[in-house]
């Protein structure tokens, strides 16, 4: 089992980046690797509650993000500073995510075999 980190830094509706990262995270869990997903910058907004993309015809991928828990993907991390930048706190988030300061993010990166930026 290897450690794989998926990093997201794009805003929620910037192309399919967040959804591509979600697929990548789920698939590494499915092939039994120890996968982590780190949200930073505007990507933290992809975890914001109460969004309704359906209302303008866009897929509700927030529903799919919630399935991470069902599929036992437990290593979901958010950049603490980025939450602050966008005025979010843990209660605003769709799923449980661990807030990491920069030094904790460094430690997370150093523990990986592969890091992929999507």
């Amino acid at each position, binding site marked *: 089992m290897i450690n794989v980190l998926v990093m997201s830094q794009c*805003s*929620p*509706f*910037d192309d399919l980046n967040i959804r591509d990262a979600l697929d990548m995270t789920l698939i590494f869990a499915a092939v039994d690797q120890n996968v982590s997903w780190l949200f930073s*910058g*505007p990507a933290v*907004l992809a975890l*914001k*509650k*109460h*969004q*309704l*993309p*359906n*209302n*303008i015809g*866009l897929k509700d991928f927030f529903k799919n993000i919630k399935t991470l828990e069902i599929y036992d993907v437990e290593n979901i991390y958010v950049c603490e500073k980025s939450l602050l930048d*966008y*005025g979010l706190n843990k209660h605003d988030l769709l799923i449980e995510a661990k807030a990491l300061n920069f030094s904790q993010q460094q430690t997370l990166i150093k523990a990986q075999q592969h890091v992929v930026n999507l």
Partner: protein
Amino acid sequence: MSTLHIFSKPLNYYCANQLENLILSDDNVLLVGDACFAKKQFRQFADTLLILEQDAQIRAIKLTDNDKAISYEDFVALTLSTNQSITW
């Protein structure tokens, strides 16, 4: 002689130091798409920000007194009432 500035992403997507020098106080700043998440960042460019209402709504963004909700009809009208538009 007002320009319509259209943004669809948070401010870090743009070359920020030049924007503040190219947007004038009587210009219009319209936030659409993911730019709606970043009202606070764009506030420096205009006292009142224009926000595409549908895009803000689906993102669960609450508008405040300094925001002006814009429908698609308003958006069309804005492009006509300004001299030129720039989609950044």
